[in-house]
């Protein structure tokens, strides 16, 4: 459906996208994961024809976006990072405008009503967009992307700036849409791609670092590497014990939590889950564990893990 090959994009001296290639098959939901400034938006902009690549080609359904822009663009529904809404229009007028802009041939009223129902904007259909909440605006943006029933949907950071309830709603909506669309979704939130996508493409510094199915990805990233512990006992003794424990890379005391109880931050060796062993060992040595929290991985940790440590990462960059 989508084929990017050797895309390079320079902004002056800055290399924003560096030789990015990947393909997305029909019906896939692909997550495009990377920290801020990784090149996600630039790549998606090239894919949707908003920007042109310095070199490389982007094909949509076999059609090159530069050679036949109209035909390629017709197959894509795009929701940019900031939904491109005309604030002075009502939702109805706006969707009507997008309908005409895209030159859609479907029966107008029925099609727009259907979209409004899917994107759940019926309640605000006749209201002026200016007066809508951020969550509703985002849904209007999604509705606009759906106009004309494009086979491919591209969402750039669709949940940024929404409250938790709205985030869940938008994710559910995207998952529903995934049943009969090919979707590319960019985000810097790991849990988001895990919740929604079949496949994850990781990008940083303009380069693709990994391209794996979500299941594979979860396997790599599952074992927690950072623990927050709350342990009762003499601080120095506990620290000495933690540091000598097999599988612990580093340990440090953070703060005193209660009388005789301290919190510790422990980093474990790669790919090994030591939580159970550590728990029993501490109990054996009479250091009661009053709390243990496995810290989720940040996107940065995942990159570290994917490229195997700081040094490699620098090289990659």
């Amino acid at each position, binding site marked *: 459906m989508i084929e990017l090959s050797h895309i390079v994009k320079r902004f002056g001296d800055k290399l924003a996208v560096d030789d990015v290639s990947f393909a997305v098959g029909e019906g896939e939901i692909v997550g495009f994961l990377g920290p801020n400034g990784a090149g996600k938006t630039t790549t998606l902009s090239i894919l949707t024809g*908003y920007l042109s690549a310095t070199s490389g080609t982007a094909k949509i359904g076999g059609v090159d976006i530069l050679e036949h822009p*109209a035909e390629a*663009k017709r197959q894509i529904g795009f929701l940019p990072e900031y939904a*491109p809404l*005309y604030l*002075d229009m009502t939702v109805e007028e706006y969707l009507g405008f997008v309908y*005409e*802009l895209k030159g859609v041939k479907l029966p107008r009223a029925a099609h727009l009503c259907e979209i409004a129902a899917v994107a759940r904007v019926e309640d605000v259909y006749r209201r002026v967009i200016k007066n809508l909440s951020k969550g509703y605006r985002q849904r209007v943006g999604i509705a606009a992307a759906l106009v004309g029933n494009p086979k491919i949907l591209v969402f750039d950071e669709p949940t940024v700036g929404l409250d938790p309830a709205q985030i869940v709603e938008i994710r559910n909506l995207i998952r529903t849409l995934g049943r009969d669309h090919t979707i590319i979704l960019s985000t810097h939130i790991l849990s988001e791609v895990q919740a929604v996508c079949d496949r994850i493409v990781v990008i940083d510094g303009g380069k693709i670092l990994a391209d794996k199915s979500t299941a594979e990805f979860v396997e790599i990233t599952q074992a927690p590497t950072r623990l927050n512990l709350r342990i009762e006992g003499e601080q120095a003794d506990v620290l000495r014990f933690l540091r000598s424990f097999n599988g612990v890379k580093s340990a440090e005391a953070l703060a005193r939590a209660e009388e005789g109880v301290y919190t510790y931050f422990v980093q474990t060796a790669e790919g090994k889950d030591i939580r159970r062993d550590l728990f029993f060992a501490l109990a054996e040595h009479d250091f009661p564990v009053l709390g243990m929290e496995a810290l989720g991985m940040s996107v940065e940790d995942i990159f570290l893990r994917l490229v195997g440590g700081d040094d490699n990462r620098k090289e990659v960059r």
Partner: protein
Amino acid sequence: MGAIYRRELRAYFISPVGYVFVGVFLCLAGAFFALSTLYSGTTSLSSYFTYVLMSFVVLIPLLTMRLFSEERKSRTEQLLLTSPVSLWGMVMAKFFAAFTLFGATLLVSCLNFLFIKGEYGAINVPVMLAQLLGVLLCGAAFCALGIFLSSLTENQLIAALTSIGAIVAMLGLGFITSGIENTALRVTLKWFSVSDRFYTFSYGLFDFVSLFYYVSIAFVFLFLTVRVLEKRRWA
């Protein structure tokens, strides 16, 4: 293209801009008309149309300032640029939206001429039509110029001010050139003087060269606008 044209025309009347333009244009036209014909006791419209031309300095930028700058600022240009509409389609749609409102208001302002009939004698209709055509063409060129300047910035105020400056320059060039002694320079600058071309129309001459001149000026600025949009894509 039709979608953008209709949206722009409607947008003029969703915001106050369209009303302000029509209102101010008609007021000024009425005042100019009263001063230059009724109070001057003449049926010649050439000074009236010259005044109207001068008023474009403020009026045309009002129409064109937001056409691209606002689109860029509110990021709605992303919608347009990722839709299956060509850049030329976008630019022409916006140009014709501005030109339609301008032309329609100009035609409505011609109702003033009805006052002349019977009171002071008749208007020379063919001359009036030539003058009207001249004003329309000149307005088209200024609209294209304003659109071009609007595509360069995301700030409406800057778009408006630069347009005002550029229109003043194009109108004023005729006055400046007469004082220049170097013939080559004078002729060259005179070539860019929009008002000079207008005078052939104001004498009631239908001049194909001037017609072609105005159409080329409009075309050049619209072409430059397309290039600006195209370039941004490659930036």
